[in-house]
Structure formats: C-alpha cells, structure tokens
C-alpha cells in the first residue's frame, strides 16, 4: 500500500515539475530511479505511459487556443515515429545501468544547454535581425 502512495507522491512531484514546463517527464525518471529504485527501463516505460493522459488534455486545450502550428508537422511526426521504433528497440537491448548512465549524461548536457539558453536565444535573434538587414 505504501508503495502505491509513494508512487502517487513522486508522480505528483514529477507532474508539477512537468506541468511548469520543465521537460515534461524528464525529471520524473530520476525521481523514480533515485527515490524508488525503479530500474531505468521501468522508469522510462512508466514515464512514457504517464505522459499520455495529460498530453491529450493539454493538446485539446492548445488546439482550442490555436497555439498549435501544424504547417509541415507531418514532416516531423512521421520520421519521429520511425526513429522512435528503432530507438525503443535499441533501448530495450541496452543494459539497465548503461542506459541509466547514458540518460544521466543526456540530462547533464541538457542542463548545461538550459543554463545558457537565454544567451543562445539572444545570439540567434541578433543573427536573425542581421540577416533581415
């Protein structure tokens, strides 16, 4: 029973973090592996499934608010589906600890990019303005 409660609580925390815009479920996975000793494969699978109900609701709202830009979106979605089949199978074939460490490195790289995101965006915008001139 406590297991159920802890899962609820950690899901809740992960959901808040995701809801505030930070990487969706990306922080849920470390929460599950660090505090509940989930295996990396299980944490990833749980993260994937957990994302779906919330995403459906959010998407409906976003579409209503006309925030979703669909021009060319199939050029993104279809390749992403194909790539994800490959990488999902790859992920399954990898050792759990290796996958966990790879994910950790991914998080670290992302965090460094995030740190400099403002500077990066500013630099790109400057370049865009230059190009327009």
């Amino acid at each position: 029973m406590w297991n159920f409660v802890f899962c609820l609580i950690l899901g809740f925390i992960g959901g808040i973090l995701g809801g505030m815009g930070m990487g969706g479920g990306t922080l849920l996975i470390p929460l599950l592996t660090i505090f509940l000793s989930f295996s990396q494969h299980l944490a990833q699978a749980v993260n994937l499934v957990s994302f779906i109900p919330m995403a459906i609701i959010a998407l409906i709202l976003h579409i209503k608010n006309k925030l979703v830009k669909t021009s060319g979106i199939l050029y993104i979605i279809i390749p992403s589906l194909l790539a994800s089949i490959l990488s999902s199978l790859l992920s399954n074939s990898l050792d759990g600890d290796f996958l966990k460490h790879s994910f950790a490195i991914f998080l670290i790289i992302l965090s460094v990019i995030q740190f400099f995101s403002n500077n990066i965006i500013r630099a790109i915008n400057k370049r865009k303005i230059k190009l327009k001139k």
Partner: protein
Amino acid sequence: MQLKKKCLLIGVGLITGFINGLFGGGGGMIVVPLLTILLSLEEKEAHATSIAIILPTTFLSAVIQIISKNYDFSVGLPVAIGVASGGILGSFLLKKTKDKTLVKIFAFVMLLAGVKMLIF
C-alpha cells in the same frame, strides 16, 4: 515548401523521435528549442506544437514498452494519477510564476539529478 525546409523538419523529427524512444522521454526538451529556432515559433506555440509532435511518438514507444513487458501497471497507475494531478497544479503554478530564474533552477535540478544518476 522548400526542400531545405522539408529536410530540416525531417531531421527534427528523426532526432526527437530517436531520443524520446531511447530515453522514454526528453523529446520535448529537444523539439521545443528546435521549433523556436528553425521554425521561428513563439515560446507558447512551440510548447503547444511540441505536444502534438511528442504525443504520437510517445504513444508508440509506450505501446512497444508495454509489449516488451517493461511496464508494470501496479506502479504505473499511481504514478500516472500523480503525474496527471501534479500536471494540473503545475500548469496553474506556471501561470503565476513566469520567471527566467525558474529555467535556471530547473537546469540546476536536472544537473543534480544527472550527476546523482551517474555516480550513485
């Protein structure tokens, strides 16, 4: 549409789908900046559009993981309920706190999480 743009979009899709499937997530963190930079979408539009992109690929990956028996419903269900509830609160909080420092705090938390997962 120009061929160059089509290739860019396909590239975005391949990277996003690959990462999302490999790590069971994280595709959103990749695709949002790419949409902002390559398609010049505003931040809100990029976030909204990213969900439209990530949802199908996540669904597909989820199905593969369930079939592969990597998913456990007895823990997955409470986590999903928690995530859904937390997500509602989180988006509500987001409206109240639009802050650039938030990005840095989250980046730091991500860094800590990554280091912890790497070392321990």
